[in-house]
């Protein structure tokens, strides 16, 4: 993270009846970064975002947006928002919807420029109600960026989009970041987080359990998987020290290990015929599963400890 903090939660607590949605959560969004906020359903992501958007107030702790209370309209004039579930008026046209939102900002982009940037020209004069789910998301994205925001909140931005639309969306998101816009990305799609985020924050049970770059988070899982085709019997390999798991699928072995280098050496030494070797590091998905499981286990043991910082 570099430069200023644009938005932050400081020891924020939010309870809904008996449920503690946020438990002393502290996080911050720096200038020019894409922060992915990850967590299972009910982990507290939405509550954290709602507080940063001024939709809710923390019971204790602080929330700030551009140094102001998020409920101050002046703070919200500097952000763009794409919510996960919002039913806009079906009778209105994308051009009208984008223009209406632009009106709320100091120096918005030209509506036509937004339409062009997102390739919405062919949709701009159709009724919103007749658009497909993915097209609606594109229009909502247009409404989020039209105010020339310094900070963009995107909640599951690519849901419902086809592969093509999604990759152009990602391209625009990367461009925006290059232009200096910070982005808070909430997503279930870890591939999306992996592709876009500079920094990842994992929330579980209303607490921050891990935070770091995508690489740092991935390294929580030091296991690697070796894929190969070998003439050695599977049971022989399974018996080697350091092999944690071994699967065989379509004649291809998957060897899970913490010590990929020594297993590889043994393979190459022991089997002159070994081929199609591929070594994969754990992805964000595995890391996320690992981190949240560990957190669950820790909570289960009554420790309630954060796994990592």
């Amino acid at each position, binding site marked *: 993270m570099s430069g200023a903090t644009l938005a932050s939660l400081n020891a924020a607590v939010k309870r809904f009846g008996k449920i503690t949605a946020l438990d002393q959560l502290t996080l911050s969004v720096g200038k020019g970064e894409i922060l992915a906020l990850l967590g299972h359903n009910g982990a507290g992501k939405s509550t954290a975002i709602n507080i940063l958007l*001024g939709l809710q107030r923390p019971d204790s702790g602080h929330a700030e947006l*551009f140094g102001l209370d998020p409920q101050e309209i002046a703070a919200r*004039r500097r952000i763009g928002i794409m919510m996960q579930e919002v*039913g806009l*008026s079906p009778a209105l046209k994308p051009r009208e919807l984008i223009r209406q939102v632009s*009106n709320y900002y100091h120096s918005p982009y030209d509506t036509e420029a937004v339409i062009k940037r997102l390739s919405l020209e062919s949709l701009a004069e159709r009724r919103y109600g007749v658009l497909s789910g993915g097209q609606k998301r594109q229009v909502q994205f247009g409404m989020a960026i039209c105010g020339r925001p310094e900070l963009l909140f995107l909640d599951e931005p690519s849901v419902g989009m086809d592969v093509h639309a999604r990759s152009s969306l990602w391209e625009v998101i990367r461009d925006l970041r290059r232009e200096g816009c910070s982005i808070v990305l909430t997503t279930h799609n870890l591939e999306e987080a992996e592709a876009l985020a500079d920094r990842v924050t994992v929330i579980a049970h209303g607490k921050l359990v891990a935070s770091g770059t995508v690489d740092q988070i991935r390294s929580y899982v030091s296991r690697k998987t070796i894929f190969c085709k070998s003439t050695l019997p599977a049971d022989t390999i399974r018996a080697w020290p350091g092999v944690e798991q071994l699967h065989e699928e379509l004649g291809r072995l998957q060897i899970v290990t913490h010590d990929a280098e020594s297993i590889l050496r043994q393979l190459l030494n022991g089997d002159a015929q070994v081929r199609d070797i591929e070594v994969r590091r754990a992805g964000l998905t595995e890391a996320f599963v690992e981190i949240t499981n560990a957190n669950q286990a820790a909570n289960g043991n009554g420790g309630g400890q954060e796994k990592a910082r």
Partner: protein
Amino acid sequence: MSVDTMTNYSTSSLSGSRLLGAYLGDIKIEFTKMIRTPAFAVPTLFFPAMFYVLFGVVMQGGDPEASLQIFARMGVFGTMAPGLFGFGVSLAFEREYGQLTFKQALPTPPGSYLLARMLMAMLFASIIATLLIVLAVTLTKAPLTAVSAIKVFFIEVLGVLPFCAMGLFVGSAASGQAAPAIVNIIYLPMAFLSGLWFPLQYLKYPIFQEMAPLWPSFHLSQIALHELGKESFGSMGSHFCALIGITLLFFTIAVRRLSGAGVHMFGARRPGAAVRKSRLLGTAVIFVSIALIIAGVMGGHEKVPAVTSTVAAEEGAGSPVTDTQSAAPVGVTAPETTQLANFDGGSTAVSYGLGWIAADDKTRGGDSVSAVKLTSGGAAGSKAAMEVAGTVGTAIAYPFAGTVFFPAGDTRTGFEKWGFMDYSKRKTLRFQVRGDGQDYLVMFIGPVMGGIPAMYHFTAGQDWKEVSVPLRDLASLDLERVKMVGIGTMTAGPFRFEIDDVRIE
């Protein structure tokens, strides 16, 4: 926290023109949205005009006075839908589908959501009012001056506010699915019970007339009728009190409900003194509005005569202005006697007034005939009774033949000059009857001509029997102003019946 000193974080408010642009943009979008929603726009814009043409032109045959009255009532009907549906149904949907939350998170200028919607409703109301004015001027000879047209226009445009507030309340509470049903359940019965479809006098149960001042549409229609010089009920002050009270009450409760659900229509406030202050203010407004409503309901009863009838009233005679409800002053107090002829003295006459005489529909262009004569041997062994016999013709739509009595009538002047009799202290009209087994009716005519008179049906069988008419239960009978009592039939064909010992007690 670290703040980027390079950026100026104090740029807080939009420039005046951009802020105005934001408000105007919201108003335009709101109107565009509603006008593109046919389920809202078509009934809202065209039903009042359609009903005006049906009730005010087709049904009244261009009768200028009647059509002017219906112009006022349908105009008020037209102000109801934009607010009730525009706020009630749309708000409920937008609340349910997250649009309201989205607006809340966006830097929407404070109050713009409500303002845009309110102006949308007013814009719709102004289109409706214009449409009705154009119809009234082109299709009828209604005496609508430019000044009263403008007054009515503004009454109707501002009149949307209480309905906006009621709609806001429904929208703040109901789900998107339930809201259209709830709004319709409020909308149509309220229009009916406020006397927008039929004058309230036609409602059979007096309780509904008593309840009328509860409905904002009643108050608004009384203001409009008064402005057009028509008879209205209650003082204008009480109508304004009620309308302001209803608007404030529903608006305050709705805004509170929404704010409790995290939707702050005027921007959120930090918890603490400001919130406590605004809650306190809200509570005060609720109490004041309830007081205003009570004042409005209390002052909503007594009759204000129509301006057009003052000349007739000064002359001391009932004006037979077609269709208008009693343009007339209260009738002469009825003489002490309860007897309205027993026919034993050799005459069909009552001790006062004119009658009983034979009556038919010839003056209205009909071909019915009727004759009265005394017969010997009345009810309960009395000396004589009166026989009424003749034939009801088919020449006109509402034929009549029988006998009539004009309590304030006399032979020296004519029908137009006769006044009314005040029977408000009497409860029952009683008489003995026998006849050919057919159904007959007792009919009362007051200052209202051309409408449906108050009627009571009975059968005249072979043997004498008593008919007692519960005067106070008859719909649309103005007991203070009775011009004519008739007994006869509207059924085509020959008829014959005898009456005896007629009393009003």
